[in-house]
């Protein structure tokens, strides 16, 4: 694996040559596993995540005294299988997280390019809005918006995108300010390209890297924010299985010592966020050393 040159035997097809040295394999692995679990949730879950058996309430995990093999990670206050809820929760967290990040990335990158390239009053308007929105802490702003629009998974995606696009706009604008002074952009202007065309063909491809790095770094924040919203009751509505919601339910059994309801969903959130952060840090160093101080 380390030395590709040794593989001189001819294969009927050409293997793509990836140099995976230095890649954060464990975080990537965790992310892939969670993604597969989320995609094939129906096939692997032993129980319906939203329907429980009241006779089976608060069963501990299988390896603890009182637990049974029927519910590997125990059951919650309605007798729902924790493992099944965790698996479906992965779907909620990942779909909401990725959608919000992508959505925010599109809006932020678009406005950032407009702001940086056009300058003038467009720049002033976009940047002043960005400034005032950045003044609100992401979580508080999200709580406010979520409280207005009401809880639903779709609403949460919109809310998170509305809160987090400003970061992209800031970073992308900064990049565009230096890109627009480059020779190839000036030549494009001389050649008679329209502003729209220049932004699309000459500016956009050069800021995509930064936007992707930022998106990876934001994924963790967005997922934690979603979990916090769900925990506070303004995020994904029950009985859907979101990890933050499971923690809110788990809190009810905390003082009675039902630890599995608090530990497992939190571990899932942590693994997902940790992986996203590690991959983001790695991408940042790999793609764009200048972004380091962000």
């Amino acid at each position: 694996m380390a030395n590709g040159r040794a593989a001189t035997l001819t294969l009927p097809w050409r293997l793509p040559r990836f140099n995976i040295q230095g890649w954060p394999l464990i975080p990537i692995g965790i992310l892939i596993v969670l993604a597969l679990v989320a995609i094939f949730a129906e096939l692997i879950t032993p129980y319906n995540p939203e329907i429980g058996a009241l006779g089976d309430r608060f069963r501990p995990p299988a390896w603890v005294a009182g637990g049974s093999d029927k519910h590997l990670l125990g059951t919650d206050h309605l007798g729902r299988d924790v493992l099944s809820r965790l698996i479906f929760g992965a779907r909620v967290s990942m779909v909401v997280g990725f959608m919000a990040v992508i959505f925010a990335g599109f809006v932020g990158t678009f406005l950032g390019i407009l702001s940086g390239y056009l300058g003038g009053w467009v720049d002033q308007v976009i940047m002043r809005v960005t400034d005032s929105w950045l003044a609100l802490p992401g979580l508080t702003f999200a709580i406010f918006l979520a409280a207005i629009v009401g809880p639903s998974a779709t609403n949460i995606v919109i809310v998170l995108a509305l809160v987090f696009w400003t970061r992209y706009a800031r970073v992308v604008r900064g990049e565009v300010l230096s890109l627009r002074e480059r020779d190839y952009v000036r030549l494009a202007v001389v050649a008679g390209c329209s502003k729209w065309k220049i932004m699309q063909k000459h500016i956009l491809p050069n800021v995509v890297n930064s936007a992707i790095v930022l998106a990876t770094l934001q994924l963790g924040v967005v997922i934690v924010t979603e979990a916090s919203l769900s925990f506070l009751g303004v995020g994904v509505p029950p009985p859907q299985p979101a990890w933050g919601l499971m923690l809110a339910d788990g809190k009810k059994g905390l003082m009675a010592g039902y630890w599995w309801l608090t530990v497992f969903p939190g571990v899932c959130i942590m693994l997902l966020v940790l992986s996203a952060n590690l991959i983001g840090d790695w991408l940042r160093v790999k793609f764009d050393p200048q972004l380091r101080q962000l």
Partner: protein
Amino acid sequence: MRKFILKRLGYAVLSLFLLSFTIFFFVRVTGDPTTLLVEPGASREDIAALQQQLGLDRPVWVQYGSFVSNLARGDFGRSFYYRTPVIELYLSRLPNSLLLAVAAMTFSLLIGIPSGILAAVRLNGVWDRGGKIFALLGLSMPQFWVGLLLILFFSVYLGWLPSSGSGTPLHVLMPAFALGWYFAAAHMRLTRSSMLEVLGSEYIKLARLKGLPEALVIGKHAFKNALIPVLTLAGINLVLMINIAVVVETVFAWPGVGRLLYEGIAFRDFPVVQATIVLGGAMIIVVNLVVDVLYAWIDPRIRLGR
């Protein structure tokens, strides 16, 4: 200098204006605000009366004007639940939030600064690696989950600390830790990078060339200079802590501003939600303004730069 302050002040006022506009806009655009402002279960006559009282039949710009003038006078309306002016409620909770934030800040600086310095002095050593893991965990674990785990361990199993409420010094320990870890991680990272920058500077080289003992070079010359950006960030973070403590305060039933926001959501007490957001945003805008002006005052390059 005066020109710089005036310009910065102008931006801050503009930001406040945009903030109020954003909040007004979102409340109006998402439907009839009376549905948010009226108590659940109110009769149709009550709703109609409120609509007239709020002047919703007037043009939007007139409505916005009165909204802003109310805010400027500190009139955030009355809480549905507590039946008192929201501003009084907010101010009565603020000292608790401040206490929690100061405790969390103390903890985060006590951990963050020494470990950041050690990490920078012994680059890639045990402290540096351990610190990296500590920081990564702090940035990756949701604060409320840290809080729940602390309750599970220290309250449920060991029975050492009270799981919720306030009043004694023991009550503040766990919420401060849960809130402070994330910031400890941020302060550690900044101390490390700031220290590395200072250690590479000319005057540190000179201090070493003079033959000063290493402890004195680091303790006296490097430490003080490396601390400036960290303390600035800490100042901003203190205000941020007050405003993002909502989940931690909810977990520990800590009677601060964040808990007020949570109650506002839970009881559908919209004036409370609106006031906490506006006041929080205003607080942060003001602090950023103060920090910018102080920086310009200390460092002429900033005020002459742009």
